């Protein structure tokens, strides 16, 4: 298990980056929960956590842990980020196309 999982968010003295792609801080996530966000998709809208290059593949487990800590929600009850195409970044010309444009060039 990742080291971050053993941290106690509420006892930390310093702010940490939760979403490294968008550089979203724990304090911003706390603020979003305070404003009413109750699942990962709602956190994403309010903070941009999960909107970067990795699309939440890094921060979603940290965000789930934050929800568990702050709201007492069981991990299995937390609605994950909506899964969408593409799984990893893909060139626009290749999206949905049979031709691999970037391979040809």
């Amino acid at each position, binding site marked *: 298990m990742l080291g971050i999982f053993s941290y106690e968010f509420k006892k930390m003295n310093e702010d940490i980056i939760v979403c490294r792609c968008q550089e979203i801080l724990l304090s911003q996530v706390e603020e979003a929960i305070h404003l*009413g966000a109750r699942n990962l998709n709602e956190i994403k*809208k309010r903070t941009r956590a999960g909107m970067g290059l990795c699309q939440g593949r890094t921060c979603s487990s940290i965000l789930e842990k934050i929800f568990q800590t702050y709201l007492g929600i069981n991990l299995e009850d937390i609605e994950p980020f909506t899964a969408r195409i593409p799984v990893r*970044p*893909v060139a*626009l*010309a290749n*999206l*949905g*196309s049979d031709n691999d444009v*970037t391979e040809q060039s």
Partner: protein
Amino acid sequence: MLPNKADVAIIGGGLIGASIAYHLTLLGVNPLLIEKNDLSMGTSGACDGMLCLQTKKPGVHLKIALVSAQNLKTFSHITPIDIGYENRGAMMIIENEDDLRAMESFAEQQSKSGLEVSLFDQKATLEREPLLSTKILGSTFSTIEAQVNPYYLNYAFAQLAEKNGATVITHCEVKDICTANSRVRKLSTTKGDCLVDIVVNACGIHAPKIGMMLGVEIPIKPQRGQVIISEEMPALISSIIITANTAAVKYAEYNRGINKTGVGVEQSHNGNLIFGATREYVGFNSSTTLDGLYSISKHIVEIFPSFGELQVIRTFSGLRPTTDDGLPILGPVEGIGGLFIAAGHGGDGVCLSAVTGQIISSLIVNGKSDYDIIPFSLSRFSTSSSHRKC
């Protein structure tokens, strides 16, 4: 906590509901805004943020859109919350002779409705947007168009409304509404009951469901728009870009079931490029499909060849609340006292959010609006109502 009574209850915490809440507080009413999820989690959170006027039907539609765009510009100056407002102007790309003829007459009609549109030849178009393909013929351009971050605008309306005295309750679903003496009387929700004098149905694609609680049929259908998001890039375009056939797809042939794609491009404040969008009637299915996405990416690469190499990081789809004539439904519902509707904005909700708030708040407080709302009435459709009592 849900209050046990409210003078005005607005159902729906999207852009339209939040704007109505904000505008009511400006007229001295402190409404209750109820949302079943968090704010901006439906259509308002799954769209682009274009305040586009050239795609509006010349006439009453364009008229209120012009007012709304101006009001949003003013709002961007007064709100302490950044709504990402950028006055970039919008360019409609003309790709063939048919588009050219259509746009020449469309631009003339728009000028008559008060929207100044310039016709650019290919040279002037490429000077403004050098990454466009040299295959395009030209464009129309209007300077007053802008973009916003739709959910930041949603939060801004709601937070200012709350600061002015409104009550915002999220994660609270309205399960039933009942009437007494032919007036709305009580909301039953997942957080308890609330006695009400006035109810505003601002539920977008879910407005028909709320309508059915009162036996009111509301002809709004979800229309899916699939959207592609690129990685963050330095400025690649300076304007909002829309292909001219978008206007044709929207109005010239308002055919249900035909899945045509006009495309638009917007570069967000963060640098992501937003490519949209399909127009599909597939019920409440909000998935993205390879066919739908390809119809967008193919067309984008035709007009911006170098964009083919941009990395796509995400796709999403939103469900536009559409009506058969492309206009929203605004105003009181005949036969049920205290019931108002503000829904069915299609793909124009961001642009029309401000004026919708202004119209509905004025109808509630003053009993009249500064604008002719007859073209927006529910009664323009032949619908039925047979409400139940408390």
